[in-house]
C-alpha cells in the first residue's frame, strides 16, 4: 500500500495533481473567490470541450502517434451537423444529433486512419495535412455562414442543467448537461483503454510497434480503429461545443489543437508514446483550464496573460520531465539496495 502511494505520488499524474493543487492554493490566496462553488462549476464547464478533445488526443498519444487534425474534425462535425438540421428542417432527438456529429467525425477519422494505418505515413504529417484539408473543405464546400440561431432541440438541451443551485445574490450556478458528455467519454475511454484488449493493444503499440507485430497484433487495423475512434470523439466534442455556445460557427475550435495537446502531456502522457491515463488527462485539462481562466481572477494584467500562460506551460512540461529523471536515478539506487528478482526453489 505504501508502495502504491509512493508510486502514485511520483507518477506523472500524481505530480500534476500536486502542481494543480499548489496552483489552486496560490490562486485562492490571491483571490479567495477562486475556491467558491460558482467558480469551480464554471471551471468544470469551461473544461468540457477541451476535455473531450483531450481524451481523443490521449488515445493517439498512447499509441505512439500524434494528432493535430482533431479540431478541424470537431469544427467540421459541429458545422455540418447544424447546417444539415437547419437546411433540411428535420427535428431528430438530441441523441440522434450527437450520433450524426459522431458519424461525421468517424468518417473523417477514417481518412486519417487510411493514410496512417494502411499507407504507414507518419501521424504528424498526415494530421497536419488533414487539418488543412478538412478545414479547407468545410469552409469551401459546406459553408462559412454563422448560425446564431440553432435548432430548438439543441437549445433545449443546452438549457438543461446537470446540476444547478441558486445563490443568495440571485445568481444561478449551473453545470450544463453537456458535462455528462465529458464524463461519459472519459469513462468510456477509461474502459476501452483499461479493460479491453483493443485498449491494451493501443498501449502495446505505443510501447513497441515491432514487438506488437511479432505477437500478431494487426498494427494497421488497430491504427485505423484508433483514428476512427478519435474522429468520433472529436465529432462529439464539436456538437457539444454547439450546444454550449448556442451558435454554429465554422471558424471555431481550429487553432486550439496545441493547447489541448499541451493539456494531455501535462497530464502525464508522453509525446513518445505508450504512456498516459484518463485520470492524468483530466487533471491536465483542469490545470490548463484553470491557468487559462483564472488569470483575471488573480489579477494578472491582461497584457501579461499570454506571457504567463506560456510560462506556466513550460513549467508544467518541465516538471514531469525533471521528476522522471529523478525517478530514474532513484530506480538505480533502489536496484542497488536489493535485487527485485528473487529466485525460489525450482519446480
Amino acid at each position, binding site marked *: 500500500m505504501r508502495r*502504491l502511494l509512493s*508510486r502514485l505520488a511520483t507518477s506523472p499524474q500524481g505530480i500534476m495533481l500536486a502542481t494543480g493543487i499548489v496552483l489552486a492554493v496560490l490562486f485562492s490566496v490571491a483571490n479567495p473567490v477562486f475556491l467558491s462553488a460558482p467558480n469551480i462549476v464554471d471551471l468544470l464547464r469551461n473544461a468540457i470541450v477541451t476535455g473531450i478533445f483531450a481524451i481523443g488526443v490521449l488515445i493517439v498519444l498512447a499509441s505512439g502517434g500524434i494528432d493535430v487534425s482533431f479540431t478541424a474534425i470537431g469544427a467540421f462535425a459541429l458545422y455540418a451537423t447544424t447546417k444539415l438540421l437547419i437546411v433540411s428542417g428535420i427535428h431528430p432527438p438530441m441523441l440522434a444529433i450527437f450520433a450524426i456529429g459522431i458519424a461525421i467525425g468517424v468518417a473523417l477519422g477514417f481518412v486519417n486512419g487510411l493514410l496512417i494505418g494502411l499507407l504507414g505515413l507518419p501521424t504528424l504529417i498526415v494530421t497536419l495535412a488533414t487539418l488543412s484539408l478538412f478545414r479547407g473543405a468545410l469552409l469551401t464546400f459546406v459553408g462559412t455562414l454563422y448560425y446564431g440561431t440553432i435548432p430548438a432541440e439543441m437549445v433545449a438541451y443546452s438549457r438543461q442543467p446537470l446540476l444547478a443551485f441558486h445563490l443568495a445574490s440571485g445568481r444561478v450556478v449551473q453545470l450544463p448537461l453537456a458535462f455528462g458528455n465529458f464524463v461519459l467519454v472519459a469513462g468510456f475511454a477509461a474502459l476501452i483503454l*483499461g*479493460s*479491453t*484488449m*483493443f*485498449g*491494451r*493493444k493501443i*498501449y*502495446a503499440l*505505443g*510501447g*513497441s510497434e*515491432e*514487438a*506488437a*507485430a*511479432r*505477437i*500478431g*497484433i*494487426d498494427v494497421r487495423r488497430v491504427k485505423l480503429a484508433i483514428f476512427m475512434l478519435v474522429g468520433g470523439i472529436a465529432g462529439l466534442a464539436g456538437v457539444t461545443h454547439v450546444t454550449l455556445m448556442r451558435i454554429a460557427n465554422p471558424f471555431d475550435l481550429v487553432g486550439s489543437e496545441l493547447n489541448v495537446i499541451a493539456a494531455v502531456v501535462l497530464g502525464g502522457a508522453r509525446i513518445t508514446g*505508450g*504512456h498516459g491515463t484518463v485520470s492524468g488527462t483530466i487533471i491536465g485539462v483542469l490545470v490548463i483550464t484553470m491557468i487559462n481562466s483564472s488569470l483575471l481572477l488573480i489579477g494578472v494584467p491582461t497584457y501579461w496573460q499570454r506571457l504567463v500562460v506560456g510560462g506556466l506551460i513550460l513549467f508544467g512540461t518541465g516538471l514531469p520531465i525533471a521528476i522522471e529523471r529523478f525517478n530514474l536515478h532513484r*530506480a*538505480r*539506487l*533502489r*536496484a*542497488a539496495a536489493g*535485487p*527485485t*528478482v*528473487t*529466485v*525460489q*526453489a*525450482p*519446480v
Partner: protein
Amino acid sequence: MRGIFKSYGPARVLQDVDFLLGPGEVRCLAGENGSGKSTLIKILSGVVAADSGTVSLFGRPVAGTDPAGVIAAGLSVIYQDFSLFPNLTVGENITFLRAAAHRDRLVHRLRRRRLAAETLDRIGVKLDLDEPVETLPVAAKQLVAIARALANDARIVVMDEPTTALTRNEVDNLLRLVAALKQEGVSFVFVSHKIEEVFTVCDTVTVIRDGKVAASGAASDFTPAALVTAMTGRDIASQRLPRDATAPGRPFLSARGLTRIGEYRDVDLDLHAGEIVSIVGLLGSGRTELALSLFGDTRPDGGTLVLDGRPLSFGSVRDAMAVGIAYVPEDRLSEGLFLDQSINDNITVSSLGRDSRLGWLNVAAGARRAKAAVERLRIRLQTVAAPVVQLSGGNQQRVVLARWMEREPRLIILNSPTVGVDVGSKRDIHELLVALRAKGTAVLVVTDDIGEALAISDRILVMAGGRITASLAGDCATEHEIAARVAKDAA
C-alpha cells in the same frame, strides 16, 4: 519446415534449410551469430515469409505471414531482445500473448493476475506484477519473456538464446523447467551457442552455418568438439591469434575502486598500450555500464581514473575522445550507425574536425579519407554515397571501426564487436585488433563470447554482479574455467 530459402536483397540468408521437430522433443538450433538462426525463427513464427519452401505446424501448413495464427496454434517465441512492451507491467506482459491469441475482447484483470502469478510460480520466480517492465533489470526482463511464452500454454516454445542474461541458478531452473514441460509433451526449439547447455537439455541438434544446415542429428551423436567444428567450420584452437610477447609498460588508463551505484563497484583495471584485454560477463553483469563510464558517457559515483599517470574525470564523451579513447557500442543498429545516412558520413562523423578549417569542411578530403578507410578495411560496397543500411552486418561493423580508426585512438573499447557478424568478418575484425595492438593501441573488448575472448586476448577479466571477479592470462585460461566463473552469481 522444408526447403526454406530466404534472401534479403543480394544477401542469401537461408538456403534449402530443413527443420523438423517432434512432440516432446527438445531440438537445439545451433550456429554462430549471423548464421541465419534468427531468420529461421522469424519464418517459423510467421513474422516474415520464406521466399520458397513450406512451413507446417502440427500438420497444418502456415502460409505467408500470420504471427497471430501461429501463436494461437500454440507456438511461442522468446526473442533474444525479449520483444516485451516496456511501458506495460510485468503481469500484463506475461498474459498479453495469451489474451491476444485467444482473441479476447475484454481484459479479465483478476484472471490475468492469477495466471501471471501462477506462471511465475511455475518457473520459481518472484516479481512484482505491477512493476513496469522498463524499470526491470535485464535478467528479470528475460524471465518475464519466458513466463509470457509459458502463459500461452504453448505446445512449441522457441527460445532464442534464453540464458544469456541469467545467473547459473536461474539457468538451472530454466533447464529443469524445460525438462519438466517436455514430459507434458511440449516441444522446444532451443537456440544457443553454449555447448554445455546443448548437451544438458537437448535431444536433437540442428547446426546452421552460413544459411545452410551443416549438421543434424541426435545430441548423443555429437561430441562437443564435433559440434563446435560444425558450427564454426574449423577447429576452434586454430582461431587463437598470436600473442604479443613484449611485456606491457606503464598503463595507459587505470581505474581504482571505480563504482557506480547499482551498476558496478570496486573495479580495478589497468589498460596498457599494445595490449588486448577482454571483459567477459553476462548481460546485466555491469560490463556495458563500466565501458560507458570509461568512455565518459556516465559518471562513476566513486573511485579514480588515472590516464598516463595523471588523475582525470570525464565530463562527457567528448572529454574521453579528446584523450584518445574510442568506443564501439553494443548495438550497432541503434547506437552505432546512422542507418539512412551515407557510408561516407558514417565514417567521417567523428573526425569532421580533421577536414575542416574554422568549421568548414573540406568535403573532397573527407571523401578521400572515407574511400581509403573502405579499402583498408576491405568494406565491400558500390559507393561511399550509399546509405549504410544497405551493407551487411559485418561490413556495417567495419564502418563503425573505420570511424574510430580515423581518429587513431590510444584506447579503443569494443562492446560485443562481433555480434551478428559473419565468420569471415569476425576473423577480419579480430586481425584488425591485433594490428592495432601492434601499433601500440590499448584494446578493451567487452563480450559474452568466451571463444572470442580466448581467441584474441592477452588478458581476460571476468565480470559478474558488477565486480571483476577474476583476471586470467589469455593463453592459460580455458573456456570451461571462464564459463564457470562467468556464470557464478557474484551475489
